[in-house]
C-alpha cells in the first residue's frame, strides 16, 4: 500500500517550485557515510488484501473467548461492551485528532474529558480526577511520586501491600529505583487475603510517606479499609488505593467514602477491549487540595469572550511542556481515546445499569465459587469478601492442565510464580460473560468427571 498521493507530475512541479530537479537533493546535506547505509531491508509492500490475510493468520493462532472459556481477571477483565462505545471511538473526529491544544476546534474532546473527570470522581467518591494516565501500574507509581512531592523529606518510606497486583508492584519498584532517598516496604497479607492491619499499625510511623493497597486487591478481596485509613491518619501517611476492577465501585463503598487521599487504578474494565492488556487507561483521582501536584492532563471549564461555556486544558504549568525538568511528571498523553470509551460506557449503562452489571458479576462469581467449593471440593484460600474474582486451592492443579486444555477452558491464573507461598492456588474470575453452561463445565472439569 501507498498513502502518498504524489503523481510523477506533482513531484516534478513541486521540485521545480523548490528549485531542485531530483528528490535526493532534498537530503544531500546529510553526510554521505550515513546515506549510503540507510536502505531498509524488509519485505516489499503488500496489497490491502494480503495485509488482512497475514493479520488474520496471526490472529487465528490466539485463543479468544469465542473458542475458549476464560476465567481470567487479574487486572484485565472480560466484560460486555455496548455497541455505542466502538461507534463513538471509531469516529475519526475523536480518533484522528491531537491533544486539544487549540480549544476552539477541540471542544468535542475537551468536553468529553471533562465528563470523564466528573464520572471518575463520582465513581471513586473523590474530589478531583485527571484526564487519564497510561495504565493502572504507572498510575500507582505516579500516585507514589505525587505523595513524595506532597510529603516532607523526612517521610520517605512507602508501604505497599503484598496483596497489590504483582506487576504493579514491579512497575513501582522500577520507577522508584533511581530515587535513592525513597524506600519501599512490603506489607504482608493476612488469612482473609487482606492487608495485614496489625503490621501496619505497628510499622507506619512519622517516617511513612504513604500506604498503598488494592481495592479490591489482586486476590479479588474487598479490603477492610477503615483500619488502614486510621493508621494513615494517625501517622500522617497518605492513604492510596488502587482499583484494577472499577466496575466494583458501582456497588462497593468507594475509596473517597473510606477517606482515601489518592485513588488510582486501571480503567480497562469500563468499556475497553482486553487487547492483551493494552491500551487501557490509568485513572487518577485525589483530594482537591493536591490538585497542583497532580500528574497528567486536566480539562477545566471556562468561558469565551461572549460568555459561552467552553473547556480548555488547564493548570498546565504543572506539565513538562511548560515546566520541563520541574514538571510534576514527564507524561504528555492521557490515553484519551480509551478514556472516551469509558465515558461512553458509563453514560450508556448509567446509574442503574452500572449497579446492575456489578450485581450480575457478584452473583455469578459467588455462585461459581460456591459450586467449586461444594461440588468440586476446592478450598477457598482466603476468607475475605470478594467481588468477581477469588482464590481457590487445588492440589492437583498442575496435573489437571491437559484436562482443561481438552475442554478448552482457561480456569484461572496460577499464583505460585508471584507468590511461592500460594502453591496450588488459582485466581478465578467470573463475569457476566461467563454463562451458566460454562460454569457447569468448569465445575465438572475440576471434579474430574
Amino acid at each position: 500500500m501507498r498513502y502518498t498521493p504524489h503523481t510523477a507530475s506533482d513531484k516534478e512541479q513541486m521540485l521545480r517550485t523548490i528549485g531542485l530537479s531530483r528528490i535526493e537533493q532534498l537530503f544531500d546535506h546529510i553526510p554521505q557515510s550515513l546515506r549510503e547505509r540507510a536502505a531498509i531491508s524488509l519485505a516489499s509492500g503488500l496489497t490491502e488484501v494480503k495485509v488482512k490475510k497475514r493479520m488474520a493468520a496471526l490472529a487465528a493462532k490466539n485463543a479468544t473467548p469465542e473458542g475458549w472459556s476464560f476465567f481470567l481477571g487479574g487486572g484485565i477483565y472480560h466484560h460486555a461492551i455496548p455497541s455505542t462505545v466502538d461507534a463513538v471511538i471509531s469516529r475519526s473526529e475523536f480518533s484522528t485528532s491531537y491533544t486539544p491544544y487549540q480549544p476552539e476546534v477541540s471542544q468535542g474532546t475537551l468536553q468529553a474529558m471533562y465528563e470523564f473527570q466528573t464520572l471518575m470522581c463520582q465513581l471513586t467518591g473523590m474530589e478531583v480526577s485527571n484526564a487519564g494516565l497510561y495504565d493502572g501500574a504507572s498510575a500507582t507509581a505516579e500516585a507514589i511520586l505525587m505523595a513524595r512531592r506532597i510529603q516532607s523529606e523526612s517521610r520517605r518510606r512507602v508501604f505497599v501491600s503484598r496483596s497489590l497486583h504483582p506487576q504493579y508492584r514491579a512497575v513501582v519498584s522500577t520507577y522508584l529505583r533511581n530515587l535513592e532517598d525513597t524506600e519501599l516496604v512490603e506489607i504482608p497479607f493476612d488469612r482473609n487475603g487482606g492487608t495485614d492491619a496489625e503490621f501496619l499499625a505497628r510499622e507506619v510511623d512519622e517516617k511513612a510517606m504513604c500506604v498503598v493497597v488494592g481495592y479490591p486487591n489482586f486476590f479479588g478481596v474487598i479490603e477492610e479499609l477503615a483500619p488502614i485509613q486510621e493508621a494513615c491518619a494517625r501517622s500522617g501517611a497518605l492513604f492510596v488505593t488502587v482499583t484494577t476492577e472499577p466496575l466494583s465501585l458501582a456497588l462497593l463503598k468507594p475509596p473517597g467514602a473510606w477517606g482515601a487521599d489518592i485513588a488510582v487504578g486501571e480503567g480497562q474494565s469500563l468499556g475497553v477491549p482486553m487487547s492483551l492488556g493494552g491500551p487501557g487507561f490509568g485513572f487518577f483521582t485525589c483530594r482537591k487540595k493536591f490538585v497542583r501536584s497532580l500528574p497528567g492532563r486536566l480539562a477545566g471549564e471556562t468561558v469565551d469572550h461572549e460568555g459561552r461555556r467552553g473547556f480548555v486544558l488547564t493548570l498546565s504549568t504543572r506539565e513538562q511542556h511548560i515546566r520541563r525538568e520541574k514538571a510534576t511528571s514527564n507524561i504528555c498523553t492521557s490515553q484519551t481515546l480509551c478514556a472516551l470509551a469509558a465515558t461512553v460506557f458509563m453514560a450508556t449503562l448509567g446509574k442503574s445499569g452500572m449497579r446492575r452489571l456489578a450485581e450480575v458479576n457478584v452473583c455469578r462469581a459467588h455462585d461459581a465459587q460456591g459450586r467449586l467449593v461444594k461440588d468440586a471440593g476446592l478450598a477457598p484460600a482466603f476468607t475475605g469478601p470478594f467481588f468477581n474474582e477469588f482464590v481457590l486451592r487445588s492440589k492437583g492443579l498442575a496435573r489437571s492442565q491437559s484436562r482443561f486444555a481438552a475442554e478448552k477452558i482457561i480456569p484461572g491464573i496460577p499464583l505460585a510464580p508471584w507468590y511461592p507461598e500460594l502453591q496450588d492456588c488459582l485466581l478465578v474470575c467470573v463475569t457476566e460473560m461467563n454463562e451458566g453452561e460454562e460454569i457447569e463445565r468448569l465445575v465438572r472439569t475440576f471434579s474430574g468427571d
Partner: protein
Amino acid sequence: MSEHSPGTDLRRSAPPLIFESGSPGRSGFFWPEEKGEGGEKIPSELLRDDIPGFPELGELEVLRHFTRLSHLNYAIESQFYPLGSCTMKYNPKVNEVVARLPGFSSLHPLAPPELIQGALELLYELEEMLAEISGMAHVTLQPAAGAQGELTGLMVIRACLRERSNPRRKIIVPDTAHGTNPASSTLCGYEVVQISSSNRGMVEAAKVAEVMDEEVAALMLTNPNTLGIFEKNIQEIAEVVHKKGGLVYLDGANLNALMGIAKPGDMGVDVLHINLHKTFSTPHGGGGPGAGPVGVKSFLRDFLPVPRILKKDGSFVLREDFAKSVGRVRSFFGNFGILVRAYAYIISLGSDGLEEASRMALLNANYLRKKLEGAYQLAYPEPCMHECVFTDRLQQRHGVATLDIAKRLLDYGFHPPTIYFPLVVSGALMIEPTETENREILDAFADAMNSIAREAKEHPDLVKGAPYTTPVGRLDEARAARKPVLRWEPAKE
C-alpha cells in the same frame, strides 16, 4: 457570508453535559433478573447506596450526545492538521479493521503463552522490523508512549553506567528539545544541563565538549531536531560523549524524516525511542493511546525491561529472568492494540513504501517552506527536513502575533501548526505537513497563510479577533487556571 467567515459557519450551541440531560431511572443497559440473585453476598457495610449525579440516559441519547460533540473537533480526516513534531499523517483504515479482529482485541494477557502465539509472533517481528528501520540491535515494545520510552531508555543508560562504575549525575539536553526530555531526566534521578544550539539551529560538538565530563551520563538529542534541521554533526558529537564514557540518546520523535535516508544506529546513537503514533501512523486519539518502543545497541540488551520475547524451537516464550534488567515499566505487554496497527502499517508499506513516505514528507515540507518564505520570516535558513519553522517577526510590526495567526487559520478551516515551540524561536510556527497530503491541500494552506499575512498588514484587528467561525471563540484560559472548575457538580438547592 461575512468577511469574518471565509470558511463554513461552524458556530452553534454546544450540547449540554451528560449530567444535565436524561431522566431518573433511564438507562441504555438491559439485563433481565437471574436466578440466585438477591442474597447478601457482600456485607452491607461495604456497599454504597447510589452513585450520586451519575448519568441516566437512553442509548440514542448517548449516541446523539457524543456524535454532536464529535462535530466540534478538527481531525485529520476532516482538516489538514500540520502540527510540527506531531506527524499528523493519515491513519489507514485497514489498521483499524485488523486491530479489531477478535484474535487481537479479545486476548487476555495472562492466558498461557502457548495460547497467544500469534500475538507473541507479531510482537517479536515488530521488534525486529523496528530494529532494522532504526539501525538498532534490540527493541522493547513495552513503553506506553514516547515519554515513557524516554524514561525507559534513560533507566537502561543508568543501569549500564551503574554496572560500569557509577550511574553519574547529569544529562545534557539542547534548548530545542521537547519538554519531556528534561522531565524524564529528572524522573530518572538526573540533573539537567541545558546547552544552546548555534545560530544555524544545530548543536555543535564544541559546545557539547564544554560541558561533557565524567559526571554526564548521556546527551539527549532529537534528529532532525525540532527546528526540522538535521543535526549533521551528530557523529562528531557522539564521539565527544563516548570519549568521556557517556551515552547518546536519540529522541526519535522525528523518525518520519529519516526512513531510508539515514539510520540512527549509524549516527553513534546508543539508545532511542520511537513514537509509533507519529512515524508509524497509529491514531493520536485526541491525546493517546500511543506507544514508545525503545531500541538499543547490542551492549545494552541485558538492561532492557522484562518480559522479553524469545524464539525457541519455532515457538515464542516469555522470559523475565534477566538480572541486569531495569525491571518492568508497564503492566502486561504495553499498548498491544497500537503495536498491531503499527505492524500492519509496516508490512503494508514495506521497505520501499517506508522510504517513499520519508521522501515525500521532505518534499511536502520543503514545498510549503518555499511557498511561505515570502510572507513569513524563516527561523533559520538551513535546509529543512520534514518540517519547517517560521516566526511572527514580520507580522509583529503590525501588532499581530503567532497566536493570532493560529486562531485566524481556524477560520480558514485549517488546524494551526505547533506554536511557540521550540522555545528558542520567538513566536515559532512549526509546520509539519507529512507525506499523506497532496499538492492541492498544500497550495490551499499556503494561500490561507499568505492571505492572513496580508490581513495582518491591512486589517490587523480582524486577525487579532479571530476565530469567528469556530464553535466557541477564544477561551479565557487564565480564568480556568485561576479558579479551576474540573468537574460538574449538581446545582445547590
